[in-house]
């Protein structure tokens, strides 16, 4: 069926989102047509603003609307510990648990030769620089318990060990193959307590 151009453009837009196929996309598009104009404007504005106002923190690479981010900027936090995660979503999961008060470093990925991702393609060089200037004494590696997450953790350990900084890996009460994002808060805080030296 041929849709008028404005609506097929909208459908096309929805289809660019993850997990949305043509059926869902056209359902959403038609729903938008029925919404109040104010609500649509508000929605469009928040989409644009989220994109325009959010950047990655130049220190830890977490998503933020201020640079450096609020976590990096918070002098109350323990400046001697850095927790390394794969994704911004992992920072949010950790923060929900409210047990950790150190700093973060977001890699935005894991090393995977099959996907053409090497150490320099995720924020590892930056992490090393941070470790040189700062007063960091411990790096907690909280990459996902997948093969690639494990390999990244082992790689980091080999890289950082010679500098004399302590490297620990969070214990896995976590399901293998699972993402940190899905781990509930209890498991996460257990995992944090039981971290072992790498």
């Amino acid at each position, binding site marked *: 069926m041929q849709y008028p151009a404005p609506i097929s453009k909208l459908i096309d837009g929805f289809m660019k989102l993850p997990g949305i196929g043509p059926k869902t996309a056209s359902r959403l598009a038609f729903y938008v047509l029925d919404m109040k104009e104010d609500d649509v404007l508000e929605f469009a504005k928040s989409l644009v603003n989220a994109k325009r106002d959010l950047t990655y923190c130049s220190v830890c690479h977490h998503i933020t609307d201020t640079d450096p981010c609020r976590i990096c900027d918070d002098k109350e936090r323990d400046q001697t510990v850095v927790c390394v995660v794969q994704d911004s979503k992992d920072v949010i999961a950790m923060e929900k648990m409210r047990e950790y008060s150190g700093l973060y470093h977001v890699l935005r990925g894991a090393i*995977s*030769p099959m996907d053409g991702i*090497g150490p320099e393609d995720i924020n590892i060089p930056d992490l090393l620089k941070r470790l040189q200037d700062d007063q960091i004494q411990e790096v907690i590696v909280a990459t996902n318990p997948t*093969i690639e997450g*494990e*390999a990244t953790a*082992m*790689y980091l350990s*080999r*890289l950082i060990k010679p500098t004399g900084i302590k490297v620990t890996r969070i214990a896995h009460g976590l399901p293998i193959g699972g993402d940190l994002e899905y781990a509930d808060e209890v498991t996460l805080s257990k995992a944090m307590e039981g971290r072992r030296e790498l």
Partner: protein
Amino acid sequence: MHIDTLYLKQFRNYKQMGLDVDNTINLILGENAQGKTNMMEAVYVLAFAKSHRTSKDKELIQWEEDFARIEAEISRKTGPLSLEVIISSRGKKTKVNGLEQRKLSEYIGALNVVMFAPEDLNLVKGGPQLRRRFIDMEIGQISPVYLHNLTLYQRVLKQRNQLLKNMFPVPDHEQEMMLDVLTDQLARAAAQVIVRRFSFLRMLAPWSQDIHRQISREKEELSLTYVPTAEVSEGMDLSMIEEKVKEKLMQNRQNEIRRGVTLSGPHRDELSLCINNKEVQTFGSQGQQRTAALSLKLAEIELINDNIGEYPILLLDDVLSELDNHRQSHLLHAIEGKVQTFVTATGVNGVEHQTLKKASTYYAEAGTLRQVK
């Protein structure tokens, strides 16, 4: 265990087919290309969530359709189970008692199946990958943990092979370090696989030896040996095996970078079979090779019974007519009354054994099955 009902929907040439199975021995007759193998394949897929003859799941879906479904009610010692495998262009789903299983390794093992088809007669004389596959499939169905470890191993192996390819011709420092990491990771996974293979063969050996001795009328001693690529042996503990596997990988390092592939590890290990201390792969006659293959399969049935406390389902596709009278008798005698079996043949000629006279008989024709006895 016992299959009570089987239902196929849009599976290969079966549009829709329901079957009540009330006998232990079930004979399926039919001309060529009518759906005998397809029906056996369906039972196999129900057990392993994949086919024995193709790695492309989509081929199982009836042409022009978008999904295939296999359902069965089975009885196990622990009680009845209903199983379901659905294959669609988006992937496959497995269900036990209506509940979707998140991981394949959680599903596999619900139904145990041993298949013996003409290509299995090559188990002994064919390439080493056939024997590795045999070992992996069989351990896999009694140990989901093994399946998990094997998948892990294969994934690390892929990563490592890709890295090796990237490293040629001039590796940089980061790559060297990453290779160390993947070598450690691979060795750890390899050790798990190897330990389990050793123990599997240790358990399988006495059964296959016994059975082979009987089929050969006490003349032949069959022995199984695991031939690893690393310097590992039975008795070694996990960490020792890991160490040895790593050692071997280190030795081959330069060579591996040049060739861009991992040259040692479980994916290159071999199973060797000897009759009276002579390797059957090389020196055995065709008859001896067939007997050895049959002994392995029968041993496997006994081993599964030993491990899980009941016999698996046996699928004999087109293989009976390939065996001479003596071997046929032995096979049918071994399963009689205890192993639910599905046998296919194009005609009753060559399969006139006493055991088959008691069988329920079905006739396959153009994607239908009709019970005739």
